[in-house]
């Protein structure tokens, strides 16, 4: 039995016909072609599929597609500026070498977006705590933590610029 769900994906109204067992991940990747979100484990352990629903990070591999009705979903594709530039957070990951194979990276970036939204100046301990749901096999996390520290700086700098006349 397919049902139509409508929601906002990266600022655009979208809809898709979904089965009861479909996951948000399937809708975003397979139905709507946003393959930036990755599937790493299908059981909520690795965080590669992290997206933001109404301001909160969720594992889209566990999130029933039917429940996204009327909500706002942000994926890695939604972070680029209107002129297709990297956001300060993504830029920080490039600057500090936070991506290696890149498969966990979109999930790491989304976790960072949510972290910095609620904590503009996270300590290394807070960063590591926020990352415990995102596995990476390449980096040993060191340059990811450095990327997030730098990302927070960049966001604060951007806020300051915006705030000044």
């Amino acid at each position, binding site marked *: 039995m397919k049902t139509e769900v409508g929601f906002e994906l990266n600022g655009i109204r979208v809809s898709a016909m979904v089965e009861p067992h479909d996951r948000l991940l399937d809708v975003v*990747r397979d139905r709507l072609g*946003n*393959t*930036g*979100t*990755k*599937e*790493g*484990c*299908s*059981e909520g*352990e*690795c965080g*590669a599929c992290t997206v933001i629903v109404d301001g909160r990070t969720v594992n889209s591999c566990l999130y029933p597609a039917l429940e996204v009705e009327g909500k706002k979903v942000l*994926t*890695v*594709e939604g*972070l*680029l500026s209107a002129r297709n530039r*990297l956001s300060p957070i*993504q*830029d920080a*990951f*490039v*600057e*500090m*070498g*936070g*991506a*290696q*194979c*890149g*498969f*966990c*990276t*979109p999930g790491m*970036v989304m976790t960072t977006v949510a972290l910095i939204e609620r904590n503009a100046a996270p300590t*290394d*301990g807070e*960063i*590591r*705590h926020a*990352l*415990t749901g*995102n*596995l*990476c*096999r*390449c*980096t*040993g*996390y*060191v*340059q*990811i*933590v450095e990327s997030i520290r730098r990302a927070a700086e960049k966001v604060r700098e951007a806020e300051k610029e915006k705030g000044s006349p």
Partner: protein
Amino acid sequence: MTDFHWIGKDHKRPDGPDKVAGKTLYIHDLTRPGMVFGKIKFSAHAHARIVRIDTSKAEKLPGVLAVLTGYNSPEVRVGFMRDNVALKRGKVRQFRDEVAAVAAISPEIAEEAIELIDVEYEPLDAVFDPVEAMREGAPLVHEVDANGKPVKTNIMPLDYGHQSGDIEAARRASKFIAEGTYSVPRIQQSCMGTAGCIAEFDMNDNLTIWAKTQIPFLAQRDYNRALEEMGLSGKNARVIVPALGGGFGTGLDTHCYEFIAILLAHRTGRPVKILYDRFEEFAYLSPRQSATTRIVQGCDADGMLTFREIEVLQDNGAYASWGATYPTVMLLPATSLYRVPNIRFSAKIVYTNNTYCQAMRGYGNPEVTWALECNMDDLAAKAGIDAYEFRRRNSNVPGETTPMGLQVSTCGMVECLTTTRTRLGWDDKRGKNEHTPGQAPRKRRGVGMASLIHVGGSGRIYRSDASGLTMKLDDFGNVNVFYGGVEMGQGLHSSITLAVAESLGVLPDQVHINQTDTATCPWDVGTHASRGAFMACNAAILAARELRGKIFASCESIFPAEIKKNIEKLRRKDPTFTPPDIDIAAIAKKENFDLARGIITLRGLPNESWAQIDIGRFLRAIHFRPDGDMLAARAFYDPPSELPDWSRGRGNMSATYTYGVQGAEVEVDEDTGEVRILRMTCALDVGKVLNLQTLKGQVYGGLVQGVGYALYEEVKSEHGRILNPGFTDYKLPTAGEIDFPIDLDFIETADTFGPFGAKGVGEPGLVPTAPAIGNAVFDAIGVRIHDLPITPEKVLAALEARKS
């Protein structure tokens, strides 16, 4: 040392922006028009005869296009010993055996169809322990070899060994002797991107396969052989490598699932995608080999090593992958880590009904280094010599030829040892066995170190160890680079970009690395043995030299004419402009030109813009003239090394060798057995830093995999069935555990054979981590853990055993 424009600095990776934007395409993201989905049915037994396979229900399921078994499809042999087939007939030898496969229009239908296949088995006695497998009368995993010849033993016919000097005499002459038996478990490579491929035939029966491989050209050879077995002799497999999502050795073999996708694609006439999920990756993609190592070493009264004896037993599992050949790399530490005059090394690799094992980063080296470096500490203690000092006395040195015949061009091991000593605060902390200040008295701290040797100039394990590279210039000054090796996250494309920019004389932004594709890229043996940057950059230097020669030869005629145009243009703007009185045609000889940062200059002309031309303009000038030309160059680099005689364990298998030392400071809770790392250090002789950012990434990442190996990771199995096939029960290090400082020190020895002096660094990060931690644990609490991982249970058991 030469002054470089780009090499040795901190650069952003060229593949970084797409990765952080989610634009990089992995096999998971690729699709083809008309594509259908393959799914495999795996064995229900570790060892059983296949009595009957009933596929009728699956065939009738709407949406199913094909159901294949070993009985209705061509036999495609797999593995370098040809002891495996893509779809099994007769019997299954492990739970990961492929007994049937379907292609369907959706993954869900394929899954449902698999469930509808009914297989009747007659279970057989099985063997899961390599020691039991060697006993007379043990169930045979294979009754015949690939040629149908009967076999009488589970011991694989692979002969690796080494003997030099006189062990018995050296043993008698030794003042101190230490021995021990150490083991390492099977672990999962745990690529974040799971395995998968898409196979597609064109109407001429040629195959294109998008494969998650580290060996595109050896894979092409394997797939072409499969095409022959399918009756498609003379047809070709083109291998295209998407972004990998991690390799770590999983891409060194071609896999049954790839051959099954090929069989399904040919049967259905559709592109077929097979994508493993995480459970399948754990249960049905091979893990790292386990090994048990017995080691005996001796030294004289001065602490100089006198002899070393190492015996390794590997539980291979049911079929031979390249993982069975770990001893080729075990020989490195066994014969050549420290200077030891008398050495015996032997290895037995045994078939069992466990899942078969494959390659992983370090490839045999961490397995033996775990035993060897723990034993070094034990021997130092017996000799009453400080463990750092013991290592320093026996350290490898530049210029030596080791018992294996390794020719050591450069070696920074002593610097690595002294750096580790300083970084760890060794002299203040070692042997102090102190209580942690402010903590309950049963938390104790300790420090430990361990060294490594690894191939640093590729590792010759095949009849060619070469890598080709092509550079093609276009009308805009772009350098399009074609290299057959694989960027799997390690930063290969960054290294190639910098090497091309540096050696050709262009800007990194002008360098474009193309997707690895056997149809367009020159041959490469594979991205393994820490060889990617070493090989690609050496090939780039050779190709750039040729290309510069071509550019400068053409400049003799083109450059003066272009400069003349510059002068005329300037004069139109400024009639007073007078160029210096130089006969440009007379000095325009190829040896006088230079190309740097994309600008061609001529020695003898002033450093002014009118006297220079942009590479793009030069390329258009040479292209759009009568008898025009477009420039390209190629190189095929084969390093100066030799294919060892494996049964004697002799041969200089690499052009150069990488050395390093890691240090660990730990705190052990004697009540809970928990080991907490307080600091890790790594001093590594890298020859020369290429890109600091990616180099750090390789070493941090390797070291943290080493921490996982040391403390957490183990693929557990019972009667051949894997018990922890997922991240819930298989513990990978998370950012939460990696809460300690990691000090990296790169020692630059400017290697003779290394590109710009650089050595390979891909694997070393994880090689000595576990013994550095194990030695630190011993320093803290005085008990030796012999079997990885060092879990709280094992620490408590060892403390308990010491009491009684």
